[in-house]
């Protein structure tokens, strides 16, 4: 079975989720939604909470649009749990992973989510706000950022206005179509953790705006047949491709 960047990224996301985890994703997160449904299909026993109010919705019902705020992430839920309660859950240390995204990021994991270019009141691009990620990122044990583009416009040397940044005492992970960066607990900067089978450290360096010191990193295993089958099972409409167009 063949795979491309979307399937590799989805497999990397699935592998972040462990049994027993309580996992949240934000708005407009179709890549994460498909990967999380596939993680359910693979039998990983974790809890899925999201802005739709649903808890562990019926993952067998395939998504038909890329929006993650439809009945598809609500129907068949075993409970309702609102965003206000989700913030409280993570604030009180009972959440594990928050999957969030960014407009830009730098080597410290400082994230631009509010705006790009110009200034706060007169931006070139107004972002979705991101006070939610400002609340969650510093308190979540394993904040995991995914970004379907890997280029120097996105991963820059210095973010001008940081909507949020990781805490020193928390894990922080960045998953891109080429590789995974991690900020270990107690450290300040992202380190290249592994690269995907179809790329090289050189390609990652060429497309990253900060200096990468690592010279040798492991290559992550390609998606397994089981992972690819799970992705296909939960996503017959190929919503996974949406963010890679």
């Amino acid at each position: 079975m063949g795979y491309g960047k979307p399937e590799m990224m989805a497999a990397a996301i699935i592998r972040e989720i462990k049994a027993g985890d309580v996992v949240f994703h934000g708005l407009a997160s179709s890549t994460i939604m498909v990967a999380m449904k596939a993680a359910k299909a693979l039998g990983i026993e974790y809890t899925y909470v999201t802005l739709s109010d649903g808890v562990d919705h019926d993952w067998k019902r395939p998504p038909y649009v890329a929006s993650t705020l439809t009945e598809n992430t609500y129907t068949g839920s075993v409970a309702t749990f609102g965003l206000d309660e989700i913030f409280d859950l993570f604030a009180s240390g009972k959440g594990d992973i928050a999957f969030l995204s960014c407009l830009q990021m730098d080597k410290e994991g400082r994230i631009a989510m509010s705006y790009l270019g110009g200034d706060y009141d007169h931006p070139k691009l107004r972002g979705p706000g991101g006070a939610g990620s400002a609340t969650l990122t510093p308190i979540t044990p394993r904040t995991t950022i995914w970004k379907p583009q890997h280029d120097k416009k996105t991963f820059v040397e210095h973010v001008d206005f940081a909507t949020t940044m990781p805490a020193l005492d928390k894990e922080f992970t960045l998953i891109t179509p080429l590789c995974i960066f991690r900020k270990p607990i107690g450290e300040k900067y992202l380190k290249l953790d592994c690269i995907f089978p179809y790329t090289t450290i050189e390609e990652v360096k060429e497309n990253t705006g900060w200096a990468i010191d690592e010279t040798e990193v492991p290559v992550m295993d390609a998606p397994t047949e089981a992972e690819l089958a799970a992705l296909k099972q939960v996503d017959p409409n190929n919503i996974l491709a949406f963010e890679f167009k």
Partner: protein
Amino acid sequence: MIHALRAGAYGVPFLPVAGMWGSDLVAQRPEFYSVMKSPFDGTEVVCVKALAPDYAIIHVQEADIYGNCRILGPSYQDLLLARAAKKVIITTERIVGTYRMEEEPKLTAIPHFLVEAVVDLPGGAKPGICYPEYLTVDWADHKAYQKAVKAGEVSLFADKMLEGRL
């Protein structure tokens, strides 16, 4: 925002929030964020100023003529909004008899005494979603709405929509 609305609903001037450390938003908006020390152990916390909107307009699946509301799909932050706002206007998919609330009082998400007015407005959340009444966004109408916003013609759009002429 949620904590600001909570402070509004609780009737206190501000509330401490978890997280927010390292965010440039705190310095950017001093009229909304402030850093304080806990009076108990000196821990530093970010605080947000209370927010009490003049009006909250909330669309529900069922309401009675007194303003008792049942939210049958996701309720998002509607309960909080209804408690933080000074006045609440309800639009509803349908008006139901109060006996529905008497049968299952726990399903009444917003009680009548918080509500100023009830508007019988089937389809009132369109072109958005109102689970389980309509499940998908009407993208054609949504684009027409965006176009109307850009052109400053929202009231014209609303007229057309209410008259079914979109």
